[in-house]
């Protein structure tokens, strides 16, 4: 269910690190919690982010969710398709609905993050608690 080439945070962001470039998005669990996404606020190209720093917001009909950068780096690309089509985040959260790309200097940046199996277990616990 959760792609094995991604790493995951407790705040339900995912990151793919390939050759010094980190692609960041929010997970299927996050989009399901949010509901219909209607608006996305993203940083400008060139912005420098630290790990855990807010990179913007994803808004649904009912809620505003702050998004935190899983890794430190400089924003090199912002997904401009999300402006006209924010609902892509609901439809393809791990693929075409990536939020930003970062130039990352530390190759060990994702080592502290959860792998797919650990994240799957993490959200399963949350789903169990929620339905109790």
């Amino acid at each position: 269910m959760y792609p094995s080439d991604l790493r995951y945070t407790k705040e339900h962001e995912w990151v793919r690190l390939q050759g010094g470039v980190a692609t960041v998005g929010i997970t299927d669990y996050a989009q399901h919690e949010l509901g219909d996404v209607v608006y996305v606020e993203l940083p400008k190209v060139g912005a420098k982010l630290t790990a855990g720093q807010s990179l913007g917001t994803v808004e649904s009909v009912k809620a505003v969710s702050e998004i935190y950068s899983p890794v430190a780096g400089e924003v090199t690309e912002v997904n401009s398709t999300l402006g006209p089509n924010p609902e892509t985040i609901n439809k393809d959260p791990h693929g075409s609905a990536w939020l930003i790309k970062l130039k990352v200097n530390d190759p060990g940046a994702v080592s502290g993050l959860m792998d797919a199996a650990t994240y799957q277990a993490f959200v399963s616990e949350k789903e169990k608690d929620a339905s109790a």
Partner: protein
Amino acid sequence: MTPPTTIQLRKTALNSAHRRMGAKMVDFGGWEMPVEYSGIIAEHMATRTAAGLFDVSHMGEIEVRGPHALELVQYVTSNDAAKLVDGQAQYSGLLTSAGTFVDDLLVHKLSDTHYLLCVNASNQDTDFAYIREHNFSQKGRFGAEIENAGPRYSQLAVQGPRALATVQRLTTAPVAGLRYYRFMFGDVAGVACLIARTGYTGEDGFELYFPPHHSERLWNDLLEAGRPQGLTPCGLGARNTLRLEAAMCLYGHEIDDTTTVWEANLGWICKPDKGDFLGRDALLAQKRDGVKRRLVGFEMEDRLIARDGYEVMIGGRQAGKVTSGSPAPFLKKNIGMAYVPVESSAPGTEIEIAIRATHARARIVPTPFYKRAA
């Protein structure tokens, strides 16, 4: 995401049906309610273009009976219940002696000696205590029989242009001829209901009141009868976006114990000529002196979304707060309501909403934002 809680939430009779359908459940005023099934936008659009089915069993019902029923209702509410005929309902306010809102409600007249009040879920116990207090506070002048009847009722709302077609498939009661804000008794899918042509969406539709043990049967039969019409189960998320587009008030947001009917554009539910009632003197004084603030609707001009509680600025100065703010799925705009100083309340007035680090531009517009085709 909310952490696990040990607070026991109240549940409607349809709680397990909602969970089986995969509804996202939330705590609403102490009740565990479905906020959405297939998505707020899909549910909202279904209600505007076909029909939506809402479990609103959390709403409260208070029965007022006996020879003094009308007197009590007239004293504790703002509208003129003496104008009602049997089988007619009216929107009204339960008021404090300061003329502010304890709750908003629907008053249904069943007979000269029997009224059914439908009140907000979160207020049903305080409303009942308030009415009971005033039932006996006039030196025995009222002494009506009152009952907090919430547990005896489930309530479903069928709303939308195809609501009538859906309900007609399940009843021989002449619902097509039931006028707006009238009600009748009839069987729907074999369940004895009070069938009211009322609703909280701005669409045509019905609210059905019936004993809770029939809930699953009526819910399922309505879904099946409505399927060819496009009937869609809808949660509280869509209920909120629908009522906001129709500029209908929500207690705790547009109205509360600090707001009056004049400020909230609800003067039409206030009938000072009907006789004395709680809050009448305060309201007459405010009418004479003029209100200082007014409830307005606004549309965002920037793409940002105004939300409940955000600051409103006019001319660079703090002017009030957003009472309700949200995307409007049918209108495809971002809208909201707020109290602003009366001198700045005209439609066309440019305002700003503080949204995180930005002062987003908005404009006061006439309400309702949405009105269904006649």
